[in-house]
């Protein structure tokens, strides 16, 4: 038998985004909020991030992942928000009909509004088509983090890290602290993908070399990993003569995160290639009326503080949508990236209220400004000393600058 249920607001995902969205929606006046989490506990990936540095922007404190999560879980409990743990959403359609599964059974939920907060997953060895054999000892950095921090299981003794994403950097330090030898971090790009503070605190402080413009070109070992061949990379091809063998028993991959939008696609939510996340307006509503998206499922963030902030807004807007306060009409203003900008969010805006653009640059720059223009007209400008693809940039847009605006273009100049 399948249970049936009708709810006002359903939030999919109990990580930082879902927790903030749920709390904000309740505080904005939505009485019927249901938070669905597939794990047995709330907090999402924060639970395995036992290092500190979370909450510096939001709370002015360096919290650990579990501490940061707990503040939000406490808030959920204080607000008496209903949560379904150990529950996974199997399917969702355009009309916001969800099918969920748990040990208690199957339930069909008709939701008045939905906030997508499913987070992201890691790119794998298969996804980057890593050549060579398929031995044991190759893990995504996040999976290794789970084993070490949550299960007290050591993944190896001599590691190479491919990719300089933040989790890879954090794991370089973690492996070192637990007695493993981390040979090096190899990054195919000419610059690091992780935050500068992590390069300093996780690599430099432990004398772990970072080799830029270098990648693993072959994996060796029939049973357990025995080593990797690395080479300098020029134009995505190994530079002949630069190949060298690095013995190791463990390869950790930190080669990118992919917003987990399979459910969104199923519900025919329009996705953007640049972010792999939903196409949203300045209320975080997707192309499907009543379906909102925030956090890492919308675009991959570097700081959880920003996830919380974004998700709070999405929760508030979802609440306003339920009150009939937000229309499903197309928004008049289009927003697009231009020179030097890899992506910008939201992609549409109504122009009826202020909002914040989130964007990433294509490559590192120094002493440049982010320009937001409507044709020749300046809408906003933000000067920055250091612009880096690893660091999300936010620019406030004021509604009084948006009169008759059609298309905002965002560039680095």
């Amino acid at each position, binding site marked *: *038998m*399948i249970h049936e249920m009708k709810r006002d607001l359903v939030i999919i995902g109990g990580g930082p985004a879902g927790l903030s969205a749920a709390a904000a929606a309740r505080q904005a006046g939505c009485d019927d909020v249901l938070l669905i989490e*597939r794990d047995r506990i709330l907090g999402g990936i924060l639970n395995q991030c036992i290092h500190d540095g979370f909450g510096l922007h939001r709370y002015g404190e360096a919290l650990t992942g579990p501490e940061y999560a707990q503040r939000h879980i406490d808030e959920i409990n204080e607000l008496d928000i209903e949560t379904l743990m*150990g529950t*996974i959403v*199997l399917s969702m359609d355009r009309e916001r009909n969800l*099918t969920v*599964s*748990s*040990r*208690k*059974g*199957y339930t069909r939920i008709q939701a008045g509004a939905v906030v997508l907060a499913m987070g992201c*997953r*890691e790119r*794998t*060895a*298969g*996804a980057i*088509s890593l*050549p*060579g*054999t*398929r*031995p*044991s*000892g190759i893990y*995504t950095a*996040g*999976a290794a983090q*789970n*084993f*070490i921090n*949550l*299960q*007290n*299981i*050591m*993944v*190896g*003794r001599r590691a190479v890290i491919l990719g300089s994403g933040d989790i890879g950097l954090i794991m370089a330090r973690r492996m070192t602290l*637990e007695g493993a030898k981390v040979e090096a971090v190899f990054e195919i790009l000419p610059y690091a993908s992780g935050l500068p503070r992590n390069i300093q605190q996780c690599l430099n402080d432990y004398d772990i070399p970072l080799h830029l413009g270098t990648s693993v*070109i*072959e994996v060796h070992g*029939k*049973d*357990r990993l025995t080593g990797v061949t690395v080479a300098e990379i020029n134009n995505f091809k190994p530079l002949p003569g630069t190949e060298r063998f690095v013995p190791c*028993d463990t390869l950790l991959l930190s080669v990118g995160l*992919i917003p987990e939008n*399979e459910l969104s*696609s199923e519900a025919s939510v329009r996705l953007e290639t640049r972010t*792999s996340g939903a196409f949203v307006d300045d209320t975080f509503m997707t192309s499907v009326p009543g379906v909102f998206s925030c956090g890492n499922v919308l675009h991959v963030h570097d700081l959880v503080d920003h996830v919380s902030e974004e998700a709070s807004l999405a929760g508030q807007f979802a609440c306003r949508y339920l009150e009939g306060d937000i229309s499903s009409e197309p928004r008049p203003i289009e927003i697009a990236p231009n020179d030097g900008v890899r992506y910008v969010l939201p992609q549409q805006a109504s122009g009826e209220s202020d909002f914040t653009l989130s964007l990433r640059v294509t490559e590192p720059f120094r002493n440049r400004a982010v320009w937001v223009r409507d044709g020749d007209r300046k809408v906003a400008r933000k000067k920055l000393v250091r612009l880096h693809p690893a660091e999300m940039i936010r620019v406030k847009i004021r509604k009084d600058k948006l009169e008759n605006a059609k298309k905002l273009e965002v560039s680095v100049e």
Partner: protein
Amino acid sequence: MTAYDVLIIGAGVVGNAIARELSRYRLKVGVLEKELDVGMGTSSRNSGVLHSGIHYTPGTLRARLNVQGNEMMKGLCRDLKVKIDYIGKLTVAQDQVDIETLEALKTQGEINGVPGLEIIDRDKMEQIQPGVGGIRALFSPTTGIICPYGLTIALADNAHENGARFHLGAKVTGISKTETCFKVKTDESGSFESKLLINAAGLYSDAVCRMLGLGEYTIYPCRGEYLILDKRLNGSLKVLVYPAPRKGGAGLGIHLTNTVDGNILIGPSNEYVDRADDYACTADVIDQLKREGRELLPAISTSDFIRGFSGLRPKQTPPEIKGFKEFVIENRKDIPGFINLVGIESPGLTCSPAIALMVRDMVGEALPLKEKDHFVAERNGFPGLFHDLPEEEKADLVAQDPDYGEIVCRCEHITKREILNAIENPLGSKTLAGIKYRARAMMGRCQGGFCMPRIVQILEQDYGYRPEDYRLYSSNSYLFTGRVR
């Protein structure tokens, strides 16, 4: 020393089909497998295509066994609950020369006994596969797709249920023949005695021959690499589409193949290698497969490649000759009791049930074949494929067994019950790969990033695994080095 009536070396699809067939009779059947699970070689590393039999010269073993095996597979997969789909195949002609090739293939197929062959025009082609190129096509309705490792495991499970014994991790190191029996030594599993000995060692069948003093066979491993595509593209192909073979062309070329689970494969490449365990994927071939795959299916995007793998064809023809050589399936008169199978490459998967019948008859020449009273033809205790059930039925199962409600693998929606069933497999395989091949967990787009830590946790909590106990697939493929502290 364990004594058998029939001892089979190699638990691939052929060895297991033979074991299952022989398990109908009052015979003590044993299977020796050097890997820690069945089907770890060529049987799990191929396109999973059920061939119709149009490509093989009439009168050859390949032609006869293919058509017979194809026909047998329908009932076999129903009994063993193995995924199979006779989706059909279009062999496409681009010009007049190709059309003549198609006609020749049709005639050859009909002589071989392939049913339902038809040369069709553009309109019909378009109906069968919208957007397909070419001017004419040969449609073979009995071509299908099958889960190759699913079949290999199911055959073994069913043989086991009917009394056959599988010795995993038992690598044969020496064979001697006495007047009455074969004595087979293994590296770590002791010695075995058997009246009859069947060589189904695939890539190592020549090595087994040499242990018996037969030097006339050499296997040349020929690697085929594949890329697996995300299920997002499921439905892009209704049928299999191959180009008409051209003179001088090598094999059937790189093509797209649907799988029964909804992923599409690109491949296989064709490259002789030196070692029978060289399953590496190479940068050049990966690039080639991506390029050619995109030509065939422009909708493929960079994020659709979820994994690459390779398999090895046990070819009897060396690189300088290429091509195919007839299967060797022989009852050796010079070594009485030795049934020898060599060079069972494509279409060996399709042929496997028919090969088993042929081998059974050879066994029957030496030993009496008395049927058991209680042979179980259907695979019992196997819950079937939960994922494919209608939602209401799934919900009912969850009500009976909450483990069906707990999703462990998010990409493929594999439940905890399915993981537990895979862990408690009748053959006693204990590797992570064994769970993967049985339950499909870790096979989705996140490649185990999400579910592997959960599966590791289940093995620790419910089965008492210590960190040192986990193996990916072989005894040296340890996953962990111990506790953190």
